[in-house]
């Protein structure tokens, strides 16, 4: 922290207009989202890419390409209404089974979620292949283990998932608020199972908090720590 102040005065940061050009150049050059951290690392000392991004996003508002936020990173993507021009660029999306799509949705809306919770919601066993396929697409990844007996692994969605579906964060999932308001994201224990599930309760509420409270990415960073 202390280092910053003298170095800021030692090396003058480029004007904001220049910083905006730099961010523009870097984002255009990359197919993958670029994190603010990486932008900071590549731009001259003292630059404020977060600020430059605000300007840049405004500049591209309504253009044929858009500056979008993906988790903690940024990318330029074509505007969705231009899709009809892009037959040539269209990628054959792997056909996902109904099981895979439902499993993905459950992970996205309930994350972090364990396999047995997914099974409880779908009322059917989740095949290894379904999870593998989603892991393979890099749309889901392992989250931190649940602090319950057996310490089961949880699944969370990835930045690639957000990028693919054009979401800034997992909080922007469509219909999330309604589902939550209807109480459908609660992990309600079956009656009679109260004892067994009572133990899990705190962690379940944790899970909800994680989804709505912190950003999912933050939570992932915590995991790394």
């Amino acid at each position, binding site marked *: 922290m202390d280092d910053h102040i003298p170095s800021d005065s030692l090396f003058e940061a480029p004007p904001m207009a220049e910083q905006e050009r730099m961010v523009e150049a870097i984002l*255009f*050059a*990359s*197919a*993958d989202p670029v994190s603010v951290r990486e932008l900071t690392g*590549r731009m001259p000392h003292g630059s404020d890419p977060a600020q430059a991004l605000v300007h840049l996003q405004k500049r591209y508002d309504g253009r044929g390409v858009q500056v979008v936020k993906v988790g903690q990173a940024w*990318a*330029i*993507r*074509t*505007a*969705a209404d*231009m*899709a009809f021009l*892009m037959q040539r*660029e*269209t*990628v054959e*999306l792997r056909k996902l089974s*109904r*099981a895979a*799509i*439902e499993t*993905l*949705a*459950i992970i*996205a*809306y309930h994350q972090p979620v364990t396999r047995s919770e997914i099974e409880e*919601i*779908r*009322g*059917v*066993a989740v095949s290894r292949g379904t999870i593998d396929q989603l892991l393979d697409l890099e749309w889901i990844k392992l989250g931190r283990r649940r602090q319950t007996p057996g310490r089961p692994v949880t699944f969370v969605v990835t930045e690639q998932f957000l*990028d*693919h*579906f*054009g*979401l800034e964060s997992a909080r922007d*999932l*469509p*219909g*999330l608020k309604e*589902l939550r308001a*209807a*109480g*459908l994201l609660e992990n*309600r224990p*079956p*009656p*009679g199972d109260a004892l067994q599930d009572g133990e899990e309760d705190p962690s379940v509420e944790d899970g909800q908090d994680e989804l709505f409270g912190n950003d999912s990415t933050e939570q992932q960073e915590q995991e790394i720590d």
Partner: protein
Amino acid sequence: MHDSQFDTDAVAERIAAETLVVDVDGYEGPLDVLLSLSRTQKVDLRQISILQLAEQYLSFVEKAKTLRIELAADYLVMAAWLAFLKSRLLLPPDPTEDGPSGEDLAAHLAFQLERLQGMRDAAAKLMALDQLGRDRFVRGITEAVTHRKNVTYTATLLDLMQGYARIRTKDEFRPFVMDRDAVLSMEQALDGLRHLIGFAGDWTDIVSYLPEGWSSDPKKRRSATAATFAATLELAKEGKIELRQSDTFAPIELRKKRDS
């Protein structure tokens, strides 16, 4: 007329049965079947009659049985559970029995169905989003960030010292063999003694047999004493000399064996 009507019914039944076969394959588990059956009630999921649903499910399982369709175990478990639920819902509550009421169980089942439906709807909304590679596109011409690696070699003083120590230690083991100026070998002592024992007529302290220049330097003296002592033992074994020591730590004395 009647016959033909019967035939028509039979055909319809067979078609229904075949549909069922196909449907069982398409179902994603008993909850999915329940969700599909619930749609036939044509009411909001929240107003669904769980009792009616349980009956529908049980008849579904019955039908599957008559058609000899192998249902997976979880379908049968659900059937058993729903039969239990049905009895709970129909019979007046037994005050002696513990556990959740039929209403609680039914409410939970309704919740599960609603939740599954909620997830289905959410999945559909998710897939309807503007997907990358379908609706939104990434940059076609990307520029790789070229990594210019500047390799800087480093070493610490410790590395240097360890490196040197490594070499020097290697050296030290060589001198251990060659560098014997402070070590008298038993062979050397023996050689010297063989020449000298002829002059040892009477008991003489073995210390006096130390070679010249080996008695002042303590390190050399120690080595020479040890070697000489070992040599005298050898000579005694050969029967050339006799050894004696009057007391612990007293001088060790030798003399030529008279008989020989």
